[in-house]
């Protein structure tokens, strides 16, 4: 017992340095427009990461992140604020940033379902869409306060998800996958043919406004003009932090332990008295709630919802983010989401090829590194505990 307490905690410095470098790099990448510069920056990143890997600099970084997570998370939040402040009047970059944040939240939800409980969900984008359509309908037809709309969006996604899960519970593996795939296609077709919800034309979503502060107007601090997307940035950041904390706490709690058991071996878990169905439903409902809330906020950010935004292909992109980032690792998800969302926007030439590229990358990952880019380490029971 005293041995565990006396082991020195990993130093903070490697993590901080990595964070600072990443922030600077991100600002540079988001700011440049000319293609040769972008390609140059990307090449630089690849070289730097490989070099760090060979010089064994990545290990200390990983350790300091793992053990000093609390402090480093605060710094990460600060770093994000710095990036946002730098681009305070650049609409498009902020929109991109907010998109990344919300996609990360959604994928974190997917992570709960899949990374922790092993429940396949190929309809992630559909639940995202349910959240978005909820905010569209409620904002247009009712006067429900917008924060409540977010919650309702999440709850609706969770509700529909739980209904969907019932047939899945009695089956395994690929049968479960089929149900979610069928649902993804079903929802898209339903939204398209249904005129009440706007049909293929979609619906406009009014911007968010809290206590009279309308989110869709540019505002000024002193004499500096700020893009209205900064409003959404603040809310998204809060949402992301909340979800991150939730996921981390969940992982470390006994709920997480049960989910892991269910994922790893159902037969053994049920021998130990775990109610498989109950835990799967818990994970699915929780995950979908998170996805729904993210979707509701995203609907308000974009101002527009259409069935074509939430197709099966988009669900596949979410799954590839999950795979790329490392199933079960929230930090990996953040990095992977950045790569998947920001890269095609910056590298215009690959815009057309992006689906092809993602699919190829995922295939490579599955063949050669199935744990993902930043794989989830073996379960840690106490911070600082080494297996």
């Amino acid at each position, binding site marked *: 017992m005293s041995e565990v307490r006396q082991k020195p905690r990993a130093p903070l410095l490697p993590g901080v340095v990595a964070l600072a470098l990443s922030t600077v790099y991100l600002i540079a990448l988001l700011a440049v427009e000319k293609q040769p510069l972008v390609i140059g920056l990307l090449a630089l990143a690849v070289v730097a990461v490989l070099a760090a890997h060979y010089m064994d600099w990545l290990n200390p970084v990983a350790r300091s992140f793992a053990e000093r997570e609390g402090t480093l998370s605060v710094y990460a939040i600060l770093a994000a604020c710095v990036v946002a402040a730098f681009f305070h009047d650049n609409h498009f970059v902020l929109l991109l940033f907010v998109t990344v944040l919300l996609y990360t939240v959604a994928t974190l939800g997917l992570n709960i379902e899949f990374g922790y409980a092993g429940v*396949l969900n190929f309809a992630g984008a559909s639940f995202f869409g349910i959240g978005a359509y909820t905010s569209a309908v409620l904002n247009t037809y009712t006067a429900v306060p917008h924060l409540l709309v977010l919650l309702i969006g999440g709850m609706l996604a969770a509700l529909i998800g739980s209904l*969907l899960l*019932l*047939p*899945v519970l*009695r*089956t395994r*593996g*690929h*049968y479960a*996958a*089929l*149900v979610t*795939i*069928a*649902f993804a*296609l*079903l929802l898209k*077709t*339903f939204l*398209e*043919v249904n005129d009440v919800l706007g049909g293929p034309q979609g619906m406009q979503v009014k911007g968010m406004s809290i206590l009279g502060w309308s989110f869709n107007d540019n505002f000024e601090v002193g004499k500096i003009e700020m893009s209205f997307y900064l409003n959404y940035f603040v809310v998204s950041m809060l949402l992301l932090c909340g979800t991150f904390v939730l996921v981390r706490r969940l992982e470390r709690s006994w709920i997480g332990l049960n989910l892991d058991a269910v994922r790893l071996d159902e*037969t053994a878990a049920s021998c130990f008295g775990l109610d498989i169905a109950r835990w799967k439903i818990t994970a699915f409902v929780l995950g979908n709630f998170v996805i729904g809330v993210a979707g509701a906020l995203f609907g308000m950010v974009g101002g527009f919802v259409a069935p074509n935004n939430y197709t*099966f*292909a988009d669900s*596949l992109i979410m*799954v*590839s983010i999950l*795979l790329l980032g490392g199933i079960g690792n929230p930090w990996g998800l953040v990095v992977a989401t950045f790569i998947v969302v920001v890269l095609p926007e910056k590298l215009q030439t690959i815009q*057309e*090829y992006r*689906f*092809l590229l*993602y*699919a*190829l990358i*995922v*295939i490579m990952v*599955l*063949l050669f590194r*199935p744990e993902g880019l930043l794989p989830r380490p073996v379960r840690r029971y106490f911070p600082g505990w080494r297996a």
Partner: protein
Amino acid sequence: MDVGLLTQYVMNGLMLGMMYTLVAVGFTLFFGVLDIIKFSHGDVLTVGAFTALATYIGLRSVGISSTPLLLLAMLVVAILAMAALGMLIARYLVMPLRSAPPLNTLLITLMLGTVLREMVRLFYPQGANPKPFPALLPTGSINLGQFNLRLDNVIMLAAGVTIIIGLRLLLDRTKLGLAIRAVAQDEETARTMGINFTAIVLITFAIGSALAAVAGVMNGLYYNEINFGMGLLLGVIGFSAAIIGGLGSIYGAILGGFLFAALQTIGAVALPFASAYKDVFAFTVVIALMAWRPTGLIQEKISERV
């Protein structure tokens, strides 16, 4: 309802069912042999259809215009090419992942499907646009009141039935079929009995992909058009059909294929205000069926080692 009209609907349903069945049978074969779902099947169908189209264009440009010859050449080239593609997929993508969780195979084949689809869209000239597919079957038709019986539909239906019967015969009466069934039942024992596992797997994939090629050409002949996205929906429908029928059973696949087509046709007829709802209807029924009979109508026998 007019008898002629009813017959027309039935005919439509039969044609759809035939195409879904060909895809579903492929899924079932792969699952039976390797216990995996090869999601790229629908997109192999697309590649097959495009290969056939390319063959057609190539042959026409060198001056061959005899219709039966063209049709034969297209079929042969598409079948051989897809068989080869299927074997490559099996060898390099599926077999290395046999020891990994089955989810990985599902994902890798899903992604492969995307790769195939995007390659057609990006690298076939103007691949993003729908392409007209030549009508190579005789186009005579007999008008029986409201019902228009087309000769090419009959030919395609007959061809489909022949293929399925042929497959059944292959599996039941030949040594190869015996080997395939043995491997599907128990891999280890089959190996002990001297069956070359890898060879059988490759052959099964080749057969399944060849079926996809035929389905692709049929689809092109029926709609006179092919586009790069045709495989995705067909793949999912074929997969659903295979599952409702019960994975691992060829009869199940046939049952599932025609059942799904029947659901779509009933949906189109019974919901006249928006026949677009037919897909929603069909998929809802699929989900409901899964809730009722999770392992399909013809139950899969699962035994699991603890």
